[in-house]
């Protein structure tokens, strides 16, 4: 397993300094695995877009969004996932979501976006 790049995204909430999400991207035998840890809320999603640039650039490959430690997502976070999905669809890659918890899955179901992703449990 080769670690290509590791991001520690420190984001500030409007209400003062708090780490909301950490994104780590690894290349595991040609499969890009992005691990999310924390809350992907509105302010976090704005910053996270820049950090996910390597995934957009490799949207012709297989991408796994590891949500094992993703605690929360709101619409800007969903939009980020959708953008990845769209890029992957355009470039002929493959995308799936790994180990999503029930609360976060509910958000995908409620907004109807569960239909756009493959969900796997590792």
């Amino acid at each position, binding site marked *: 397993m080769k670690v290509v790049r590791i991001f520690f995204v420190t984001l500030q909430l*409007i*209400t003062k300094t708090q780490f909301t999400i950490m994104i780590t991207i690894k290349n595991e035998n040609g499969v890009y695995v992005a691990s999310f840890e924390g809350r992907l*809320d*509105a*302010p976090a*999603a*704005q910053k996270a877009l820049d950090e996910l640039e390597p995934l957009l650039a490799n949207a012709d490959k297989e991408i796994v969004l590891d949500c094992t430690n993703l605690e929360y997502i*709101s*619409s*800007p976070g*969903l*939009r980020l996932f*959708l953008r990845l999905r769209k890029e992957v*669809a355009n470039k002929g890659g493959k995308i799936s979501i790994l180990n999503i918890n029930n*609360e976060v899955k*509910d*958000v995908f*179901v*409620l*907004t*109807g976006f569960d*239909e756009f992703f493959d969900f796997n449990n590792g």
Partner: protein
Amino acid sequence: MRETESASIVKRLEAVICEQWDCDALTDYGSDVTYKYSGVAKRICYFHLLFESLGIKPGDKVAICDKNSSNWAIAMLAVLTYHAVAVPLLPDYSKEQLKMLCEHCDAKFMIASYRLANLWPEGKCPMYMIDIGDLLAMSPSIYTDEVEDKAYALFAKRYPNGFTKEHVHFEAENPDDLMILSYTSGSTGNPKGVMLPWRSLQSNMQFAANALPCEKGMRAFLILPMAHMFGFAFDFLYGVTCGAHLFILTKIPAPKVILEAFATIRPNYFLCVPLVMEKIINAKVIPILKKPVMKVLFKIPGIHQLICRQIRQQLTIALGGNFYEVIMGGAALSKEVERILRMVGFRFTIGYGMTECGPIITYSDWKEHRPGSCGKAALNMEVKVDSPDPMNIPGEIITKGPNMMRGYYKNEEATKSTIDEDGWLHTGDLAVVDKDGFFFIRGRKKNMLLGSNGQNIYPEEAEDQVVSHSIFEECVVVQREGKLVALVYVSDMMLRKLGTTREELDLEAIRRDVNLHLPNYCQLSKMEQRDEEFVKTPKKSIRRFLYK
């Protein structure tokens, strides 16, 4: 079942969603995304939870502003099933006009393109905005998260084991409640908000059920703007309450795109404005008819019928071959194109209506359609010509019935001048009616000109002849010092196609040729060429009042 439920559009939607749960509902033509009825239901549920979280109540106004798309349809269904008042706004309005209309209608929630995110200066947006592109909150903020948190919590509480078709439940609407606030685009002035109660659309749906096919899983191809009542009522609302699979064109309806779509979709019914059929006829049929050999063949007994049958078959196949009839409305059909369609025996008809009637006023099935007519009084509607001799002297079309609006929003004066004390709605259109009740429109009352000998002149008649018998694509006939002047426009594309320029056109020769097709009292004394197209309303009618 209660009487209000039997006619209820919302209960009908509820039933269709459950019956068609696993069937395709909405597809943006050319995209890879198709929503099933189950997916539509889930998104409706999400909207309802957002509305609740924001404290939006039934009767509050929700503006939906964008071009046609599946997401537009979902947003509209969510608003209607919540019993909020939908305010469909065509995206062609300028940003300033949109802002003005949103404020005029007191919208509490807006569903629109992200391009309108900054319609109000930072922090001054008076409402929650959803991006129609993905049906997610428009601008990221803590406020967005708070509203969504409430919606997520409501979802977890109400549907702990997920959302299924057993959870689909909408209350029946009250027919007298306001359903739609539709802004007419104002070819003669400022937009007016037409208040349509549920009763109007219930009656229009009843009409459609008698006139159009209704089979679950049937396919419809939507090219009319759904924000316009013609497209809204019969393409969108009727289609979805029948459980149809709606294919929505999100691009400009160019003939090439439309014909490709017909071949794959093969719709069961098709509605359009006359311009679409005119373009198809101009592209597919007129070049055949203009061939010199055709003129000879048409004179041979029996061959004429054979050619007409062949053209009819080709035209029917080009439109998918699966439709009952093509229904046109929204404008007058060119007389020349109507003549050709009738000559070949094509299944088409022309209806008449207006936003104020949600929209239908007159219609007849293609089998009984009469040339130049827009049909007879539609189901549930009383229609007459206000004239001392309605069969010979044109008078204003007036109508009464459940399709009628309540009035114009915040505009009592306009309401009073449109609906008289006896409850008749004055359409502003002039017509005659034949002994069998078929109406023949002559033109708009406010456009009518008075000839030098006292003869009424309907500029629309002359304009139709100019467009039918010249290369000009747009025309407005005006009166100057008692004489008729045709203001005309031809596009650069057409000029290139013909290998000519504006300067090379012999306007005098064209004028003389057109005059051969016009009655004496309607002769054109001059043609004036414009180098840019006429200014139009968002519904693509020419703003005539700008031209003198």
